[in-house]
């Protein structure tokens, strides 16, 4: 058993866009579907992040399936050029839990250019927030264009930041071509089902 034997989902996106909020919504659903799930957080103060995760998941996940992995101040190196330490952490998960089905790797908050190494993530979600500006999709950052699924989060905040969801939608459709994107509000859970459908279809039943 090793990292090659589990499905790996990478979640990237700018600082504060809602990556952790999405992970916290997804994990209970996946566990409910009967999967054994592990979570890795790459961030500053990763151990603190991991502790927050551990607490928020309570009995859903064993504490040793939640891990923080430091990335030497290079969040994109950790998921792109040299993912070896993340893979080592996944190897440790599979050693301890041979029945593990899926691991979610949350990248540290990064810029719009960050993408996941395909050896680290079988499926790559990029989370942006409407509050970062309605022009984010049309900047065509590699994260936005190359992700398997683009998640546009915090739709509830659109009115407060003068972001027009219709503009975002048409820009996203434009830059994504045939590739999917989903609007979410991770605060109340709207749209999370749709994210889950993609994950189920593209990763877990694949």
């Amino acid at each position: 058993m090793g990292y090659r034997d589990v499905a790996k989902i990478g979640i990237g996106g700018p600082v504060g866009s809602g990556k952790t909020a999405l992970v916290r919504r997804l994990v209970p659903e996946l566990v409910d579907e009967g999967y054994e799930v592990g979570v890795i957080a790459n961030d500053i103060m990763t151990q603190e992040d991991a502790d927050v995760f551990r607490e928020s998941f309570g009995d859903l996940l064993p504490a040793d399936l939640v891990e923080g992995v430091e990335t030497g101040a290079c969040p994109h190196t950790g998921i792109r050029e040299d993912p070896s330490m993340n893979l080592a952490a996944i190897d440790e998960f599979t050693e301890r839990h041979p029945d593990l089905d899926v691991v979610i790797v949350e990248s540290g908050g990064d810029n719009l250019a960050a993408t996941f190494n395909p050896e680290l993530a079988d499926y790559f979600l990029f989370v942006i927030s409407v509050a970062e500006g309605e022009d984010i999709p049309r900047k065509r950052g590699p994260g936005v264009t190359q992700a398997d699924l683009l998640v546009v989060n915090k739709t509830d905040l659109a009115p407060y930041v003068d972001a027009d969801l219709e503009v975002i939608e048409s820009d996203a459709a434009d830059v994504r071509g045939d590739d999917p994107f989903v609007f979410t509000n991770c605060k109340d859970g709207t749209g999370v089902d749709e994210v889950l459908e993609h994950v189920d279809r593209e990763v877990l039943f694949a």
Partner: protein
Amino acid sequence: MTIDSDSFLTALRLSDSFLPVGGYTASYGLEQYVNEGRIGDGDDLRALLAGYLRRVVGPCETVALANAHDASSSDDLDQLLEVDARLHAVTMPSEFRESSTKAGAKLCELLAGTEEDLASVDVRTGLRQKFATRIDAGETPGHYPVVFGVVAQSRGLPRLEACLSHAYSFVTGLLGAAQRLGRFGHTEIQRVLGDLESVVVEICDRHVDDDATAMASFAPLAEIMGMRHERAGRRLFMS
């Protein structure tokens, strides 16, 4: 000294930050020095790294690497395991051991996956494979300098040049970490690197022929920093 082109390329490859073995996640306590405000400028950095070279990299890692290289040439697994165990014992902070063994395992794994073509040694049945199996089984820690020594020897890189490559990449790794942690100009960093070259040469010359039993470190402050790092409030690095 002359080495052939293949060995020279091996030296470059093994000391290149492009080698994906997670070196960029290790600071070997440097982050803690920065956290505690002990590193202000390039002079502090130069002094610190010279100390690491003379007290840790030279008398521990270089000795381990050189003896692993020897063990590899004489196909002596017991000697190799002995060297690995000793390096483990003299590396005090647990995070230093962790950074080193993780990188060691990754180097093993990486080459196992990409070296089927290596004609000079039978990598599948050879010493390296046996060592890798012991590492996998958790029977030996598999420290990076030890794996490095075996890999270098099996690819024909001579002992001294292997030690120089390793010490050099240790320095560039920590300088890169310093640059991401603090405020150092790229030219200042290169100046420090240039100044440390003579120390790299000095410590490799001094320790390349040491017996494995001579392995020892004396770097109490660095070790304390390494241990305090385990409980640091801000952590960007694994060690």
